[in-house]
């Protein structure tokens, strides 16, 4: 399905070039010390090629935001193992397979901030929305509240959770059009759309590219205004997945 063009002048000739052929070049704005929002949950929606690219570029002192601190030697765990990471901000650092993180953490080589999963997403959305933060009910009275301001609304106690912006987001999507508009495959959205909003500079790896007008305006999950660069990787089997694989 293609949508009628309003005939907006010069659009197709002069659109901002967002497509990059090389993972390495696409990552060339990452700097040591950046806060990097990394999409993915479980095996789904992890930008593995971008993560490997960061490892190869040998970046250092990154603060990595993800749901977990990685499993096995893949995803965020690989970033940790390669020594790229100074701090993780996650909801679930201590998984069964997060051995790489556990070792580094015990050795005092990586810092940790734990945030409830929904508040992690909401703090990033707040950054994307230009808000200073949110009043959170999650974790009131717990160790999560320690050191954070409390704000009462009526009789209800809330934790002031500040916005969590990223210098860069590394995310994964299913389809992209030349404007950078994105849709996601099945339940692979997870944190990806929120991270695209929250970062100053968003880099996407994507299964496939489609022509302008091929995505219905209302089905677009991440508008291209939140996307700076994309690399088409094709769909591939997640490195950590040992089961059967169907294209």
């Amino acid at each position, binding site marked *: 399905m293609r949508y009628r063009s309003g005939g907006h002048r010069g659009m197709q000739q002069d659109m901002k070039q967002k497509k990059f052929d090389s993972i390495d070049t696409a990552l060339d704005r990452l700097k040591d010390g950046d806060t990097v929002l990394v999409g993915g*949950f*479980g*095996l*789904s*929606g992890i930008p593995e090629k971008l993560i490997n690219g960061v490892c190869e570029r040998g970046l250092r002192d990154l603060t990595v935001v993800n*749901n*977990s601190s990685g499993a096995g030697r893949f995803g965020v765990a690989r970033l940790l193992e390669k020594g790229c990471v100074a701090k993780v901000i996650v*909801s*679930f*650092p*201590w*998984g069964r397979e997060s051995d790489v993180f556990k070792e580094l*953490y*015990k050795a005092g080589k990586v810092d*940790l901030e*734990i*945030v*409830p*999963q*929904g*508040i992690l*997403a*909401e703090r*990033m*959305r707040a950054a994307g929305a230009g808000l200073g933060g949110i009043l959170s*009910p*999650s*974790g*009131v*009275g*717990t*160790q*999560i509240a320690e050191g954070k301001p409390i704000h009462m609304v009526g009789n209800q106690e809330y934790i002031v959770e500040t916005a969590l912006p990223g210098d860069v987001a590394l995310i994964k999507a299913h389809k992209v059009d030349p404007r950078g508009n994105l849709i996601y*495959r*099945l*339940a*692979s*959205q*997870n*944190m*990806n*759309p*929120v991270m695209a909003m929250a970062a100053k500079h968003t880099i996407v790896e994507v299964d496939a590219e489609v022509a302008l007008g091929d995505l219905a305006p209302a089905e677009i*999950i991440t508008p291209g205004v939140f996307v700076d660069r994309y690399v088409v990787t094709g769909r591939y*089997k*997640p490195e950590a*997945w040992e*089961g*059967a694989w*169907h294209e």
Partner: protein
Amino acid sequence: MSERRGLSREQIAKRVAAELEDGWLVNLGLGIPTLAVNYIPEGRDILFHSENGIIGMGPRPADEDVDTDLMSAGKGPITLIEGAALVHHADSFVVARGGRLDAAILGAYQVADSGDFANWRLPDRHVGGIGGAMDIAVGAQRVFITMSQTDKDGTPKLVEDLTYPLTTKACVTKVFTEMAVIAVTDQGFVLEEVAPGFTPDDIVARTAASLIVPDDVGTIAA
């Protein structure tokens, strides 16, 4: 008394599943809660929520149909029911924190008679994992806890005050163990049912807080 085995994990899952009412939206934690999906009473339309953005999670597919982009929050393969909706993480927690879950079923290390519970961190470990538990517990209309009545060394897990780090205050509705169903009320713990082979006194002996024992304590249909 220690010879009696109490309910199996499957039996606890079946008992808590019986609480779920027609039309409810429910979130299931790892372990026994996840098993509950197999025991929904016939004729009840229960919708399952998974915090990674799935509203309308269906059962595990056949092995050849597994798709890595359809996994539960517990990382197990799932399907989508007809009429399922997919959203991103922030909106998924609008569902959870915003009060749309009729019930959440979670595991716990300890439950206090105030309804406080602990499930994310052992006192002697440096860190724990919260995941979605704090958002889900604070938002759900009812929090059902499945856990063992005592630790392995016999220490009761139903207590007056938590010694484990708090997850969420004053939110637990009922606790389901291998020995009993215990409601958390304004008056504190109330024994509702005991497992076959157990008496109310057995539960009182394994609860480190006042336990109200009404006259009409039932037996769990196992």
